[in-house]
């Protein structure tokens, strides 16, 4: 297990290096003439393996899907260890494991399997559920938690592709949630328009908070990682200040909570009033589609990827790097702001509190990395994280396993993803030809 590919700039660079490798391989066979003759000769050299064989080979190679699945498995194993060592009763059985090993194993299996079963039941489907609402409950919860994560994940992923590390999704979402909420309860507007205005307000708030590190980076070279971290905290304090201002604070309450958002500004629920899933998830899919289009089909997306891959080359080619940096951060902020708006216009809360947006910004970083900084990958990753969150709630209330385990699992999954060489070594995977697993930017301050 020697060192993997030297970390090579942004994830964007890798397709290029792969293409280069392929070309070098082609060049390494001097007998083969260029063009279609090479294609004709190749299969003749070795018998083509059967389809099933190919499938199995690829399955156990270090491709994206296999590594992701194995990373989840590894994370859950570590989580199981944590569950066991934090349960004094189970731990007690390990005191006499040499005398009666079955006790320890049984106790461990019971506590772990029960916890993970509840995780599954809370996230996907509960076999004991009766009726439509109960059966759809877990999925509804999962989608509810997924929606904001898609936005923040896209925000971080888009910035990554442009060669910027947006740690500020948390702060951008915070400013977004403030403006969305204020627009949601302060403006007397008809339904529909009100929702639209609130969403736009949230998006603009996030965009403003993304613009600051973007313009600082472009004008002074100040590193966006530092500035976005700092702006996260400025946003947190701003939120805790504005909540208690008169006109914002709920007049009937003495604690830090704002007035509730008008019902005309709330995202409609999709499956009736008893299920929390709301139109935010539809917006999230729409945003994913749009960002995928933006990245892969638009001029801006091309420039953005060019700048992310190599700013010097992009500049030489006539692309304005500074303009691109600012635009990337503004769009990233806009997305994160929308994610924040989801938290107060959706069904998770309808008023500002100091913890209203929870961790969606930081989780967004994990989601982006897990989704390999590709829009549709981000959507899937957010779905997984949303499921973990929803299942974690049930695990907490049914098995008494703290919700924090979900944070541990999420962090571990991403750690294993980020170091594919480690997963490869643990499971003795073959190196896959098209393994694009480097999440590394490796640019330093």
């Amino acid at each position, binding site marked *: 297990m020697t060192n993997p590919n030297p970390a090579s700039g942004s994830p964007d660079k890798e397709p290029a290096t792969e293409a280069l490798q392929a070309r070098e391989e082609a060049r390494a066979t001097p007998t083969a003439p260029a063009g279609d003759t090479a294609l004709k000769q190749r299969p003749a050299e070795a018998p083509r393996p059967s389809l099933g064989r190919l499938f199995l080979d690829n399955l156990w190679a270090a491709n994206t899907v296999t590594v992701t699945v194995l990373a989840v498995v590894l994370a859950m194993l570590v989580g199981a260890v944590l569950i066991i060592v934090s349960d004094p009763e189970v731990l007690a059985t390990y005191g006499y494991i040499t005398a009666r090993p079955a006790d320890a194993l049984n106790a461990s299996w019971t506590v772990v399997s029960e916890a993970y079963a509840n995780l599954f039941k809370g996230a996907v489907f509960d076999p004991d559920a009766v009726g439509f609402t109960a059966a759809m409950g877990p999925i509804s919860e999962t989608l509810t938690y997924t929606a904001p994560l898609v936005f923040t994940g896209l925000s971080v992923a888009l910035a990554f592709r442009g060669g910027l590390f947006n740690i500020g999704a948390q702060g951008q979402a915070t400013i977004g949630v403030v403006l969305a909420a204020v627009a949601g309860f302060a403006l007397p507007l008809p339904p529909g328009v009100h929702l639209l205005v609130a969403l736009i307000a949230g998006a603009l708030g996030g965009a403003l908070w993304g613009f600051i590190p973007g313009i600082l980076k472009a004008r002074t070279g100040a590193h966006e990682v530092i500035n976005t971290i700092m702006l996260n905290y400025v946003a947190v304090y701003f939120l805790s200040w504005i909540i208690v201002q008169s006109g914002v604070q709920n007049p009937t309450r003495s604690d830090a909570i704002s007035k509730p958002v008008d019902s005309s500004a709330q995202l409609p629920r999709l499956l009736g009033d008893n299920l929390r899933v709301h139109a935010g998830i539809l917006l999230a899919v729409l945003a994913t589609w749009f960002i995928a289009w933006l990245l892969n089909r638009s001029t801006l997306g091309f420039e953005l990827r060019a700048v992310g891959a190599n700013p010097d080359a992009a500049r030489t080619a006539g692309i304005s790097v500074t303009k691109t940096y600012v635009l990337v951060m503004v769009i990233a902020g806009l997305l994160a702001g929308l994610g924040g708006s989801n938290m107060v216009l959706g069904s998770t809360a309808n008023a500002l509190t100091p913890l209203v947006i929870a961790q969606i910004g930081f989780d967004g970083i994990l989601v982006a990395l897990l989704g390999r900084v590709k829009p549709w990958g981000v959507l899937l990753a957010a779905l997984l994280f949303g499921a973990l969150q929803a299942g974690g709630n049930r695990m907490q209330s049914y098995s008494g396993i703290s919700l924090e385990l979900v944070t541990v699992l999420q*962090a571990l999954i991403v750690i294993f993803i980020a170091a594919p060489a480690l997963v490869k070594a643990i499971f003795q995977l073959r190196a896959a030809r098209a393994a694009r697993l480097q999440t590394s930017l490796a640019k330093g301050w």
Partner: protein
Amino acid sequence: MSTTAVPDVAVTAVDEGFWTRARKAGAVLLALGVLAAVLFGALATDQQARFTLSETEGGAALEINGTVGAILFGVIAAATGAALLAGVPKRWFTVLLGAGLVAFVLSFLCWQVSAAPEGRNFMPLVNVLRGTFVLALPLIFGALAGVLCERSGVVNVAIEGQLLMGAFSGALFGSISGNVWVGLVAAALGGAFISLLLAVFAIRYLVDQVVMGIVLNLLAVGVTGFLYERLMQTDATKYNSAPRFSNWEIPLLKDIPLLGPALFRGNIFLYLGLLLVLVIHLALFRTRWGLRTRSVGEHPTAADTLGVKVLRLRYRNVLLAGLVAGVGGASYTLALYSFTKNMIGGKGFIALAALIFGRWSPTGALLAALFFGFADQLATYLGAIGSSIPSQFLAMLPYLATILAVAGLVGRVRAPAADGKPYIKG
């Protein structure tokens, strides 16, 4: 910061026109001074602003009429600004800037203290000074951990996680063993555990160091939060009642007015923190290890050519950083509070800010940490005297100051050249 990142823009901080850095700072300071003299002077009352040299209202005190003080110090700040603007020799820059900022703060305090309600219109300097050091302590340890890591070329965003893990394992093992020293060692090892993960993934597996730091912070929050809920909440007496270090009074020194009560009646962590600043400063700039560390952080290839074991040195320094940060975490749980979920609450990121604000040097980090600690303490104090300034805005101060510093408005900051770049031998 990396000026190389965007070379096609005008790098404003190094331009050599009329508007040099000193002149810009002077202009800002002049504006602040005038603002202070006019605004603070107008808002201050005729009450005496008393700065007592003790912890209470009584005793010796420095007194000044509120309005007079606010205007006087505002004018001083404006004067230093004007001097900078007029153009003074470079060696005076730091002194004048410092004096101007201090005068501005004093003007502000004259207003605030004189405007405070009767009975509370005094500022106990001993309390403020001691509070500053107490609040700065985790920042000092955290920033030192950052210095050790980043000077050898590994970005340490995981300070928060290291502090948290240190605080947690200090509390846990201190409680189980009932011995503070066991707790202290466990805390150091807890911090080093996060460091080990950072080192292995950053150095061995070449994972992006900032990414790894962020993920490790989340991991630390998750693991400590999980174990806190499972163990400490269910049986607090067994798992979360660590013994605490008592305060050590240093004979003679403790009787120095003002400084004595604030600095020489503290606990082990205060002395250890200040000692570490000195030790790391000397080690970094006066020893062979320090020279190697700095060279590895600036130009690892050159260092390798000269026979320095780059990766080994990086591993060692990152682990050392973990030990230091772990002890910093213990300064909470083995001296002040029992462990609670996510108790570091962003201090690790302020420590990172202090590291950057202090320009990657131990003494700079100490000063920055003290400045941030002072801002924190001031927020508490102003809250206590019922000030009209929202404490949240004071709490923003460290972060805003760092943004200004990084943007080159308060002088340019530059990271070690190889900071964050993995080294691949060969």
